[in-house]
């Protein structure tokens, strides 16, 4: 762990530093790939630091954007808007929690804003399922890969896809989903169930 090594070296350098090493131990750990120096440089507006963070985050965040907006071309716009928003707010990152988790929330919000522009979240697209409910038998997912699953997820209607992504993959609660999408918790639970059932069906059919 990088900070453990740093602490050890600080102690070895001089006894005068020891008192400060305890402060380092108590601080919450930063994301392993995003050290404080890099973030500080980004705050300062250092282009190289910003490029570094872009290179580290862009692949994952692009995947997130595609999952939410369902379209690669639109996902590029959302990714661009997300990074602009991230760099403008990076000074507000207080170090509580991982930097990647903090960045992920920014991109989720950016994607949802894009969906709200389309008013996609207000439409009640029908989601037809053969069985209409989650099967008690576990769906075999061992042989399904990322790309195939992504393709299936992007086929979900916007609202169901948003609820599914927020709850299953990004860890939002139904209460938070209700607030974000302007729906009730009951509706959120209902749409999640339908989305799960639809995916299970599609996975089995392939």
């Amino acid at each position, binding site marked *: 762990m990088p900070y453990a090594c740093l602490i050890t070296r600080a102690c070895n350098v001089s006894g005068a530093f020891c008192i400060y090493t305890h402060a380092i131990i108590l601080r919450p750990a930063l994301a392993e790939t995003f050290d*404080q120096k890099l973030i500080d440089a980004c705050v300062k*507006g250092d282009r190289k630091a910003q490029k570094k963070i872009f290179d580290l985050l862009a692949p994952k965040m692009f995947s997130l954007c595609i999952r939410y907006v369902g379209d690669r071309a639109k996902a590029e716009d959302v990714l661009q808007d997300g990074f602009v928003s991230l760099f403008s707010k990076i000074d507000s990152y207080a170090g509580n929690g991982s930097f990647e988790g903090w960045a992920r929330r920014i991109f989720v919000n950016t994607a949802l804003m894009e969906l709200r522009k389309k008013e996609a979240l207000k439409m009640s697209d029908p989601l037809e399922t053969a069985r209409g409910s989650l099967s008690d038998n576990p769906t075999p997912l061992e042989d399904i890969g990322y790309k195939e699953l*992504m393709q299936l997820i992007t086929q979900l209607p916007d609202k169901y896809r948003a609820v599914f992504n927020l709850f299953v*993959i990004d860890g939002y609660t139904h209460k938070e989903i209700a607030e974000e999408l302007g729906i009730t918790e009951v509706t959120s639970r209902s749409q999640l169930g339908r989305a799960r059932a639809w995916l299970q069906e599609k996975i089995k059919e392939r």
Partner: protein
Amino acid sequence: MIFDEKIRSIMENGSEEVPAGLWEAVESRIPAGSGKKRGAFIWLWSTGAALSAAAAVVLAVVFAGHGNKEGQIEILTSPSGILTDVPGDATSTESLSEQRDMPSGTRDFIPQAVTDGIQDKVEGKDFIEEAESPAPAEETASATDAAAAESTPAVEVSTPAAEVNTATAEVSTPAAEGNVSAAASGSIVESEEFDESGREIERKEMKKGAASFEAFGNALTNLSKPGIEAPAAHAPGRMLARKAPTSSSVEPTSDRKYGLPMSFGVGVKIPLAPKWSIGVGLDASLLTNSFAGNYTKVGEDMIIESYVFPNIRNTQVYLGLPVNVYFSIINNSFLDFYAYGGGSVEKCLLNKYNMFGDPEKLSFKDKTGGVQGSVGAGLGIEFIVAKRLGIFLDPSVRYYINGKNSPKSIRTAQPLMVGGELGLRVRL
């Protein structure tokens, strides 16, 4: 649910190939060099704080060598204040201790012949008479006293021997000024001696040097040794008359020992341009020095009393208005390295003497003089430890511009000083 967990494990860390040119599109939309400063690494902060503290300690140690040192002048361990009132009979052989008990009616300090000669209201120096003049009194002067003649008699650094042996009460006269300034320059000091009628007897030229001070010290030791009568003030001989002092004063008879000057203040640093800023503030400074010396107290009834104290501590308090211009050389997220220059105007608010004897302890507030100016420059470094907080260390070289009336202090003795400021800077 197992299904949810499986989906999450596949999709959570999924990645896609980023389209080419996307960074350039992002880059074109974000401003360069924007953003606020963040706190530095804790270990960098600790390094900076440790370095700052170490530098402050070093500065304190360096200047502590000039701090007060007592006991060097052991000669002045006499009992409390040797009262040097001059009785009417100049040939009296009474000991000084006996003189102290004399009825107040006889405490007519200045012989009438001398009093008649007084025309000007001049602040005198010393009224200690020495009946027997030893070998020509040699002046002693501090090599560090570079100040011009002062009209404040109590703060002279040099010529303790002259104060004993010569009539240099006319501080403000050209002759006296010549004495003082000559002493200050370290070459030749003139003295004036008068007979009982006030006429000048002879003019002596005396050289000063370190050895002369030692001789003077020994003489005083003999006079002030407990149990030994002190005939000098009243034995027959040349009366060294001086013009009567009209106000109380303190005169050192030994070198001054200066304490470390300390200043505390608050200020505001205002950015003017990307690399330029200006700082203004308010400073309070404390200057101290100690020495052995004579205190001449002039009462309301013009009764003049003179004391000798082995330990006199002078405390001066200044209030100053500093103005500095800063130029940032290196500026990043965790430190700011800059050069600065400026000046300050200060006013002495307090110039107090605390005189310690056994059992006598007296205090005396002297004049504070006019304003004192200074100019300085230096390099500074600030360690940014939090979003709005930095620890700065500003070593500098400063030259103090002293006026005629400036109280004697380390700033008049050593106008060119090296120092440093250590403090906190909060970004508003």
